């Protein structure tokens, strides 16, 4: 389960005209991860799917915009696979372009009607203002022999600059009303000196004229009525345009849904585009395939392609190791743990997939630090009830809760009460020293396992020197185990055990020698670096092991918190007692549960992953057809 999926490199030569069918066949298997490297043959220089991708991308943009505008839900899965030829894709792109032209004209029409409605509202406000004034509005309506008059509105932010600019041409800008971000103005200047650039400046400032109707003086009610009629007419036209757009959308609905199918089926070839090279009618593509999927891939190509093709398969070369994708764990229960591993990085091809190990050790540590039958049940139940909201993470909560329940049985704790069920083993607070010793032993085991995996991973990728002398390599492991042996001797007998101490010293000397050989520079500098590196090795292993004391410490802390809650509850009456127990348990579940999870993640990432897991790989992402 820990071993990585073996991969093969495949190279496929097909006729260019068969590329759409090839891409579909490769996507149907779900085994092909494209390799974008150019082939060695310089003649294979052209990108045969360039135009295909161009049409696809533009058609996709057009279809998405149409779907947004028409509120159309596009299916994200393929109903029936079929080959999409370049000609039909180009035709679809063209058709969608025409459709978008029509649709965007409708949309622009709606926006223009909105602008017109706003203008009418401004006009109504302006005329209401003028109607209340005791002036001859005819003066403002007509340019006179001496005066050039403009009534209208301008965005507030442009007013000061417009005032200055028109002032230079001896014009006055009079503000008579502010509405929102618009300022209503009367602009007056000398008729004989109106600059040629006046319309240009007014346009640049966003000036909109609001002419005063002739009848405003004599029949203001009629003018108001006219504006209201106009406003109603705009609303009517808007509703009609919306209906027209909806009807138009309904007429094209089926064709647009079919277009979505076409684009989904064209997507695999578009995804292959960076990996495709061609010379005349011959196209080349390469990729990575799980060893177990090669036969399936070949069968699928044989069934799909009408013309001959050439498929060559080989093992990845050592120099290609970093390019080979890693197939990640797909187990449903392990999926959330795989996501957490992915936060650190993807295992390099050949490295052990740490997900199963991470899941087991995570659950063991979480359960032992937060062991309680009742609280664990709450966590598991909450994860189950919220499974839709938690998505793929719900098994994580469920398993953590179950682990907590199992350790609750071991410790005999139900909602912090240690008298309801008998402990299968003992309560942590009964013998704290034993708990701390067990935590240390767990730490030694965890670090030893992590170092062993580090050695295995380096051997697997051919880094032999690192496997022996590198960080957390074989010599480090020997040193660590000897150090632990010497430490045990010191604890039990009060003196360092001679053999372990000697082995630890020799291993440390070997590490120092290796470090010395790696350094360059003056002797003093090298000596200083080697001394610090060696000291860091000793301190690092000791402190990392002691770091696992937190596993016991949180177990003890959990019991202590429960005792505190029960002590508080014991000081209150019946109702207070119950409320305190409920709130106290909630407090423990949320706060302590969260802290314990962070601490376990810290131990996993820092004490585990950082030792044996480079995280420099990239995930296997095969071509796929989206199916139900």
């Amino acid at each position, binding site marked *: 389960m820990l071993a990585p999926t073996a991969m093969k490199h495949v190279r496929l030569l097909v006729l260019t005209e068969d590329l759409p069918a090839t891409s579909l066949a490769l996507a149907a298997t779900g085994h092909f991860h494209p390799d974008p490297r150019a082939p060695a043959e310089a003649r294979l220089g052209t990108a045969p799917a360039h135009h295909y991708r161009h049409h696809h991308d533009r058609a996709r943009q057009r279809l998405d915009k149409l779907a947004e505008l028409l509120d159309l839900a596009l299916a994200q899965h393929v109903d029936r696979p079929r080959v999409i030829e370049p000609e039909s894709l180009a035709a679809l792109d063209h058709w969608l372009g025409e459709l978008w032209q029509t649709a965007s004209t409708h949309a622009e029409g709606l926006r223009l009607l909105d602008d017109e409605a706003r203008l009418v509202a401004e006009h109504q406000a302006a005329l209401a203002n003028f109607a209340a004034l005791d002036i001859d509005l005819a003066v403002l309506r007509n340019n006179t022999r001496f005066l050039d008059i403009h009534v209208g509105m301008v*965005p507030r932010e442009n007013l000061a600059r417009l005032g*200055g600019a028109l002032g*230079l041409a001896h014009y006055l800008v009079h503000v008579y009303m502010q509405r929102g971000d618009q300022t209503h103005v009367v602009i007056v200047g000398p008729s004989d000196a109106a600059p040629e650039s006046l319309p240009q400046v007014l346009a640049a400032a966003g000036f909109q004229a609001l002419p005063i109707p002739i009848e405003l003086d004599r029949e203001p009610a009629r003018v108001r009525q006219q504006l209201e009629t106009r406003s109603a007419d705009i609303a009517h036209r808007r509703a009609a345009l919306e209906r027209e757009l909806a009807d138009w959308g309904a007429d094209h609905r089926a064709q647009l849904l079919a277009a979505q199918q076409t684009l989904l089926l064209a997507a695999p070839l578009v995804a292959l585009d960076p990996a495709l090279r061609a010379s005349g009618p011959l196209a080349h593509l390469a990729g990575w395939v799980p060893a177990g999927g090669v036969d399936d891939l070949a069968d699928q190509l044989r069934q799909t392609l009408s013309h001959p093709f050439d498929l060559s398969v080989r093992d990845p070369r050592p120099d290609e190791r970093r390019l080979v994708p890693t197939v990640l764990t797909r187990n449903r229960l392990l999926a959330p743990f795989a996501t957490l591993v992915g936060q650190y990085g993807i295992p390099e091809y050949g490295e052990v997939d740490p997900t199963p190990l991470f899941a087991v050790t995570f659950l063991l540590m979480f359960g032992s630090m937060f062991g309680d039958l009742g609280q664990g049940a709450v966590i598991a139940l909450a994860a189950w009830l919220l499974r839709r909201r938690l998505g793929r993470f719900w098994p994580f909560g469920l398993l953590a809760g179950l682990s907590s329940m199992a350790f609750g049985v071991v410790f005999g704790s139900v909602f912090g009460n240690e008298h309801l069920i008998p402990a299968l083993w003992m309560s942590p607070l009964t013998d704290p020293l034993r708990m701390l010793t067990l935590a240390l032993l767990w730490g030694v085991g965890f670090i030893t396992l992590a170092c062993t995996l580090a050695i295995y991973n380096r051997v697997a990728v051919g880094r032999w020197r690192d496997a022996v002398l590198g960080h957390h390599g074989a010599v480090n492991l020997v040193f660590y185990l000897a150090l632990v042996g010497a430490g045990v001797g010191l604890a039990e007998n009060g003196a360092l055990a001679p053999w372990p101490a000697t082995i630890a010293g020799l291993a440390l000397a070997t590490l120092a020698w290796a470090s010395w050989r790696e350094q360059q520079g003056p002797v003093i500098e090298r000596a200083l670096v080697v001394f610090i590196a060696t000291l860091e090795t000793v301190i690092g292993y000791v402190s990392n092991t002691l770091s696992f004391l937190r596993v016991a410490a949180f177990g003890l802390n959990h019991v202590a918190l429960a005792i505190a809650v029960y002590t508080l509850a014991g000081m209150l009456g019946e109702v207070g007692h119950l409320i305190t127990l409920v709130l106290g348990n909630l407090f423990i579940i949320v706060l302590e549960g969260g802290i314990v999870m962070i601490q376990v993640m810290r131990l996993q990432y820092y004490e585990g992953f950082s030792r044996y897991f480079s995280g420099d790989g990239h995930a296997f992402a095969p071509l796929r057809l989206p199916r139900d």
Partner: protein
Amino acid sequence: MVDAAHAYLDARVSMMTRQLHDRHGLAQLAELTLPDLAQRLGLDTLLDPSQSLRSRSRAIEQALVHQLLAELQVLIRPLHGAERELILAWGRKYALYNLKTLLRGKLHAFEAETIAAQLFELPAPIRLPIRTLFRAEGVDELLRQLETGPYRQIARQAREVYARQREPFALEAAIDQHYYLDLAHHARAFGAPHGNALRRLIGAMLDRVDLLWLLRFRLCYGLSPSATFYWLVPSTGLLGRERLLHLVALEGLEAVLGTLPEPLAGRLAGSDDIAEVQRRVNAHSAATARASLAYADSAPARALAYLMLRETELLGLFAIVQGRLLGLAQHTIDAALEHVPSGCTWRAAVVDRSETD
């Protein structure tokens, strides 16, 4: 004395300042050959023969802008509120360069790949919604899309201007004007202890922009005083609203230069063309930024001054690289770096040509 809240930023700026080249250092770089430049600047792309000159030049420009914006991100990290917004408002010019590239691309119906190759990679706080904008099939649609995001003010104004005038000049002028108005607005909103230093710095920048726009609009494009004034942005420095109103009404280069306030008048006296004015006013603006970097009490002002100087330096480096890639003469590169008076390059070119003949 910089306040304690900005001690970290102040130390950061001081450290970064060490990497700025002085005029002499840049002049030395301008004399290096292409391989030496590539080695000194760590730009291997310069020597990659598999790429065209255009793509190499583009890659270098991208790398230099990326460097500048990476430093901007480092400097805004300890900043909050209005100070952070001001620095981001300054950096937003690169988002507007992208916007203009998109607009030009849509106007000339370029392919998406061609447009994408010319866009700068921007950090998240100033990034445009490129994916959405790419979907637009014309300038109007693009600006409508932009109106739904944080650039709605600029987009609305630009769209209205474009809808009325249907010409790229008005569109780009509206975008530039809004950028500088936004900066001036930010600078004016500051009180003590950063207000004076920031207004001086932004003011020097706006003085430079206003003077050059004024001269170009009036003398080259023949715009009226009214139209010219409308496109200018009243500065927080020497060229405030009243001064600009006075200047736009003048006729001719000499009249404008003769009416400028000190110290601009002294610096620009004797300039006989707009290129020379540009060279000198750029030098004035850089001197103001250098003074702010050295003496300002405000760490945000020092950070902004550093970014302005760093940008000038990186543009200089790009000019050198570009000159070497295209095989331009040394005097042309020196002119691009504004190390020599504008007329010198043409005189040097004439001498070169006569020697060749």
